[in-house]
Each structure stands twice: as C-alpha cells, then as structure tokens.
C-alpha cells in the first residue's frame, strides 16, 4: 500500500469535500433524508432535529479530517462513518471509501463506492472521480474461487477466522483484500480442509476445499456396576423402602454428576480415552 503517495491527493480531496459539507445545499440534502413533515408543528421539530444531527455530523466530519491529516486512518474512518450516519451527505461516504483504501481495505472501499454511485446524485466531477476510484479498487480486489465444497448441512467456511456464507453457487467466489489469507472448511465428523496463501492485487486463486469424512475408533465406555438388594420377613418392606430412597438419592447424585461433566467440544470429532 503506497500510503505516502496517496496522502496529498486524499487530503486535497478531503479539503474540497469539507467545503461541500459546509455549504447550505449540503444541509438541504441532509434534510431531504428525513421523513416529510405532516404539520406545521412537525416541521419545526423535524427541522430542529435534522439540524442537530447535521451539526453533530459536521463535527464528526471535522474530527475525521483532523485524524486523516495525522494519518490516523482508523480514527478517521470511524468519524467519517459517523458523519455519514448522521448527515447522509455523499462527501462523508466518499471519504469513507478513500479512508478504507488508505487502510488497504479494498473490498470494503469498492462496496462503499458502488453504494455512493447507486444512492446519491453526484455532480459530474465527483461522479467521474468516484468511478475512477471504483475502477482502481475493483482492479485491486483479489478473488478466491472455491470448489469442492460438499453439500453438507452443517458445513462451515471460515475466511481468516470469520464465518463466511457458503451460498449455493459453485465454484464459490469470495472477494478478498490482497495479502495473506486462511480459508478453512469444516463439518462435523470431517477433517477440516485448509488453504493458506498470499494473494497479489487483482489476483484470482482457484482453491479446492473438501473436508474428508472421518473414521473414528473409540473403545466402548465402561458400564456402571449394577446394584442389588435383599431382605426377609417384615424388614423386607423397610429394606425396599430404604433401597428406593437411597437409590433415588444415588440416582439424583449420578444425574447431577452426569449433568456437571464436560462434553466434547461441539463441531469436533469426539474421542474418549
């Protein structure tokens, strides 16, 4: 990631966009996002609420610019996201995309640019710039084309440790940022299949992941010894009653003990020694 060469252009862009956010037209745009008022009283309340949100959004935007100026990209991202959440202005969303790019998160940057172009009317210059960035980001996104995934009900696919939807289309295509990744497919009673590799900008890698079924040998668990009771004459009933009471107690004890014991971890092949 060439952050240094990116910095001056980004800052110039940010400076332009903060100006855009400050102009009355931007505020009007923010207000468009609120629900249309139904009465005069609602107009006052709605406007005041929208203005308060916009003011807070503008403050977040200013904090984002300051963070970007100090190359604190994670902080900048958080503030620009907050600004967009509050003010809904395209300039904030644009800066979310450029900050994601600075962080090397090209998949997310691409998706934000797509959203910007889809959801907001932009002036010609900004539209052209957003399209140019979208092309750049799309070209940097790498892809994993995953084949061999079996149609198992409890199949789990994890990309860099995070659960990923397996979908139904095969091969499954996953968009990923360039860099090192680990992909793991697992299912109960199967050995998990794992791929690890480094992807360059725009690279596409074919990965075959097939969790293999397991044959497990576990000795049969030992049975609990049987209990016996005996008695004679009148004591028979007393003995039976005592055995029942003691048996119930022992049963409760065993039940509680069984309940308190650890089980094998879910999703793994259970083996008893």
């Amino acid at each position, binding site marked *: 990631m060439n952050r240094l060469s990116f910095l001056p252009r980004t800052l110039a862009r940010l400076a332009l966009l903060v100006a855009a956010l400050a102009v009355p037209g931007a505020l009007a745009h923010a207000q468009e996002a609120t629900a249309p008022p139904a009465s005069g009283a609602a107009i006052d309340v709605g406007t005041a609420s929208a203005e308060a949100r916009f003011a807070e959004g503008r403050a977040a935007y200013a904090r984002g610019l300051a963070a970007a100026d100090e190359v604190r990209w994670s902080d900048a991202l958080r503030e620009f996201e907050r600004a967009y959440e509050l003010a809904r202005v395209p300039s904030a969303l644009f800066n979310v995309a450029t900050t994601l790019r600075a962080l090397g998160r090209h998949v997310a940057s691409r998706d934000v640019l797509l959203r910007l172009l889809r959801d907001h009317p932009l002036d010609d210059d900004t539209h052209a710039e957003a399209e140019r960035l979208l092309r750049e980001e799309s070209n940097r996104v790498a892809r994993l084309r995953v084949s*061999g995934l079996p149609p198992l009900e409890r199949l789990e696919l994890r990309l860099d440790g995070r659960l990923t939807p397996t979908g139904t289309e095969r091969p499954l295509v996953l968009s990923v940022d360039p860099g090192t990744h680990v992909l*793991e497919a*697992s299912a109960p009673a199967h*050995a*998990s*299949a*794992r*791929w*690890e590799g480094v992807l360059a900008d725009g690279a596409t890698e074919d*990965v*075959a*992941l*097939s*969790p*293999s*079924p*397991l*044959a*497990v*040998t*576990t*000795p049969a668990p030992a049975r609990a010894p049987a209990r016996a009771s005996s008695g004679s004459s009148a004591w028979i009933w007393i003995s039976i009653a005592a055995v029942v009471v003691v048996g119930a*107690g022992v049963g*409760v*004890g*065993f039940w*509680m*003990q069984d*309940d*308190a*014991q*650890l*089980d*094998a*971890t879910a*999703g*793994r*092949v*259970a*083996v*008893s*020694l």
Partner: protein
Amino acid sequence: MTAQRRRPAAPVDGRPRHAALRVAALAALALLCAACTENAVFDLDVELPAAGTLVGGTAIGAVTVQLESDTTDFESDWAADVPSATVTLGATPQTLRLSVLAQPAQLTRPLAVRVLYCETLAACEGTPADPRTELQFVLPRVFYEGVVTRYRLDATTPPATTPVTPAEIDRCDIAGCREGEMATWCTDGVHLCEL
C-alpha cells in the same frame, strides 16, 4: 427488679436437637460433591499435509491419529482399538479437530499421540496399520479437572524415517484457563490451570 432471661430448654434426651439437620446437611454436601465436574477435555488440532506428499518416493494418501493414555511406549504397534481417527488427505492441507475426553483416573497421565502416514485409507485402517512413516509425540500433562485445554500439533511434514525418540510437548505450551493467545501458559513454572 432484675430482668430475667429465658434459656432455651435443653433436649430431653441430652442429644443435640439439630442432629437431623446435620445429617441432612451432610447428605446435601454429598450430593453437591457428586455434582462436581471431574472429567476434562483436551481439544487437539492436528495439522495434516495435502495428499501426494512424498515419503521415500511413496505418495501419502491417508493419516491415522492414535491416542493412548495407558502407555508412552512407541516400540511396538498399539492395540487396534485405541482411540483413533483416520482421514483421507485432500488436495489442500487439512486440520483434524479432535476433542478428547478424559475421566478422573486419566487426568494426570501423559497423553501419547501417534500420527501414522499411509499410502491409502485401507492401509491406515488395516490391522495392524501399514504406515510408511509416523510421527510420535508425548504430552506429559494436558488434562485439568473441569477444564477444556487446547493445542495445535504440526504434523504437516511426514518424516523420511520414523524417529527414534518421540517429541515431547512442553506442558506450558498447552493452552487453557485464560482467553486469547499467550507465549506460555505457565507462570513461574506452574501451569495456569493449576493455580
């Protein structure tokens, strides 16, 4: 006039009045003890190679992982019914994710692990197995009462020849009793699960 205090009446037969309560308390204590967790779980990830890895010119196609807590003797084959898992290797490296349950009598015993590399699944499942080579590990202490511990065993590289002595895994490398990743799971030589 002085105030008089009543003393509680002494039991008629001289025995403490709450003997029955004491018995009930002992019974309850016994039940509570019965409810204590006594077993232990060890989650073992065994990282395996991709199919086709060569050992002495033979492509490896399957692996059996055997577990034994009764012996650490690797001189001879273990019984066919020792706990084990057999897997066919895939096109990419795989991880065999085991969850090993131990009962109270087994907690302090070392765990011996044998990774057998075979040409085919049938060879691994044969009695005795027909491995081309194997890796051997001894884990001196992995189980702690009522605790789930974990370890990732690297078995991605089959040895050209079976080693003479098994590799010993330091008990301080066995994760457990704290979240996250740590360089060691001991403090002052004591495992965190023993504190």
